[in-house]
């Protein structure tokens, strides 16, 4: 057994997995990774089940040190600089930390959440089948709270398997797709049109519970109180002040504001990765199209193992090169062993 020690970590970072299903009827929200595809990709790289528990890392930096042996990990999700003692580590690849080595992650550059998967996954005591942290309910394992410096995970010693990369489809761009409802009839045509036509920004006060949207005020037809009913990931409710809130993974299981629309499953992770202040729009799609996209999204997750490649088949990681330059690093070499860009400050 090895240990992976959290040497430093910013807020909004916690252990997350596929979520806690089956107890929403008791008021227990599912929680789980904000970007399920990124968690699944990171897990797939290190040979874990797609929704095994990994570390969800918020927009700030973090560093992790291997102790008592080597640890094999993979990073996916929001792009950020990553290095081991100055040796750049690319997103969407595996990397093995030797005993005592530290993986240092910078701030997210675009996006919000990155996922660190650990070979053999994080161990803990599941509640309702999940290790996901739900700080409000005191749930999550091994730590029922956001991570802090000094926390550590007991993990498998690195297998020594060859390093891998994963070829993910280019992230979709364009508007966040929604289907109207369940309470779109609480809004008149003009306000629905305003919702669909406007440019929105995610407020800085957003969190895993909900993303507050900044834009024009959306007015209700009959006031903002409805009798509470159930919510889903991506429900867009409109409270009294007219500023919509997209409910995310730590949402209340029921809510008493009219929900004008619901983000489609395939785009919830994209919304989660929209960083505060970035402008975006919504686009209405039909139920048939939304369900087709949901099925495609599920197929994409199932296909992840087919997208693994040997790390040394990549000629040059253009993205890492580009990322390194963007961050002001002088790229001076391509590591002959891994074909990864190595950079020095």
């Amino acid at each position, binding site marked *: 057994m090895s240990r992976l020690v959290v040497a430093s970590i910013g807020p909004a970072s916690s252990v997350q997995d596929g979520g806690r299903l089956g107890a929403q009827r*008791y*008021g227990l929200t599912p929680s789980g990774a904000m970007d399920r595809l990124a968690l699944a990709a990171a897990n797939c790289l290190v040979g874990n089940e797609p929704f095994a528990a990994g570390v969800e890392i918020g927009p700030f930096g973090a560093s992790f040190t291997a102790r008592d042996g080597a640890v094999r990990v993979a990073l996916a999700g929001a792009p950020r600089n990553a290095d081991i003692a100055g040796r750049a580590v690319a997103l969407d690849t595996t990397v093995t930390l030797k005993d005592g080595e530290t993986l240092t992650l910078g701030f997210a550059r675009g996006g919000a959440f990155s996922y660190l998967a650990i070979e053999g996954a994080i161990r803990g005591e599941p509640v309702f089948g999940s290790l996901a942290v739900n700080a409000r309910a005191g749930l999550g394992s091994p730590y029922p709270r956001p991570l802090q410096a000094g926390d550590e995970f007991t993990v498998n010693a690195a297998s020594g398997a060859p390093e891998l990369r994963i070829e993910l489809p280019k992230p979709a761009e364009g508007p966040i797709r929604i289907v109207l409802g369940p309470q779109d009839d609480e809004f008149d045509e003009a306000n629905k049109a305003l919702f669909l036509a406007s440019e929105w920004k995610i407020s800085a006060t957003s969190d895993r519970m909900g993303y507050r949207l900044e834009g024009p005020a959306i007015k209700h037809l009959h006031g903002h109180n*409805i009798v509470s009913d159930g919510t889903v990931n991506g429900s867009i409710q409109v409270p009294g002040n007219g500023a919509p809130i997209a409910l995310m993974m730590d949402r209340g299981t029921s809510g008493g504001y009219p929900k004008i629309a619901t983000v489609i499953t395939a785009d919830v992770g994209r919304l989660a990765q929209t960083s505060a202040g970035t402008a975006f729009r919504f686009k209405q799609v039909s139920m048939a199209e939304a369900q087709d*996209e949901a099925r495609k999204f599920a197929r994409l997750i199932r296909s992840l193992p087919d997208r693994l490649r040997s790390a040394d088949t990549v000629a040059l990681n253009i993205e890492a090169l580009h990322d390194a330059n963007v961050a002001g690093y002088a790229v001076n070499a391509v590591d002959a062993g891994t074909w990864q860009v190595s950079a020095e400050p």
Partner: protein
Amino acid sequence: MRCDNKALSSTPALIYWTCGRIYAKQGDAELKAEAALSKKPISTARFRQLMAATLPPPRLLPSGDSAVTVEFSRTIDDDANQRVLALDKALADAGIDGITESVPTYRSLLVHYDPGRIGFDALGEKLLALASQPLPPSAKARRWRIPVAYGGEHGVDLEDVAKALNTTPDDIVARHVAGDYRVAMIGFTPGWSYLSGLETSLHMSRRQNPRLLTPAGTISIGGIQTGIQCLAGPSGWHLLGRTPVRTYQLHRNPTFLTEPGDRVTFFAIDHKTFAEQDRAAEAGELIAEQVAS
């Protein structure tokens, strides 16, 4: 009780009213056997259950591509809530492939499903078919007696509520413990049990300024409801007291005490008893008494 002929005309049901006794006859074989053929008088409660099948069908409201809200009413309505809970049970019994979770609320059932296994239209048909079935005779509901320390530091709004209603705190407590409540739904945070059946004289609009933090175990009233809040958290309701009972406790069996449909009554305890029971509850005791209904 008023009969809505419009609702009846579109159904195979024929309803007889005889000397205040109610007989129901419907195309459904089970109902025939139960009501018409047996010629036994049926209770008002059973009549309402049978009538539920003749009510307008619920609305199917898309909640994204992987959930559908089956809405029986837009208001807080005990009959609608009974239909919600009946559909929830029927759905669990039906074992429809692709359904992942269902969440009953006051007036609607939220059904989560996997669109890779069943589509919106196919699921909608099945849900409407289940919702059109007559309600089964209600199983004996579980009944809980829940101790509450009213007023003082445990119920900081009790005096204000009494003032607003021109009466004494003791009278408010007397009215609150006299109630026979039903768990209409559990939601918002783990174990938060919304109870229907609050006496009309205690109906009060919520606070203008919701509190950001109210204590665990708070017993409060808001609108036409009363509730048991398990975890500390925000609330806009009026705080009458606190119970040592945990409706949610992680390492206890059962983790969740209440289920939608359970009956609940409250009784007053003093603050010293609260402190003792609170310690016992923390150690994993249920404290709540289950009584025969």
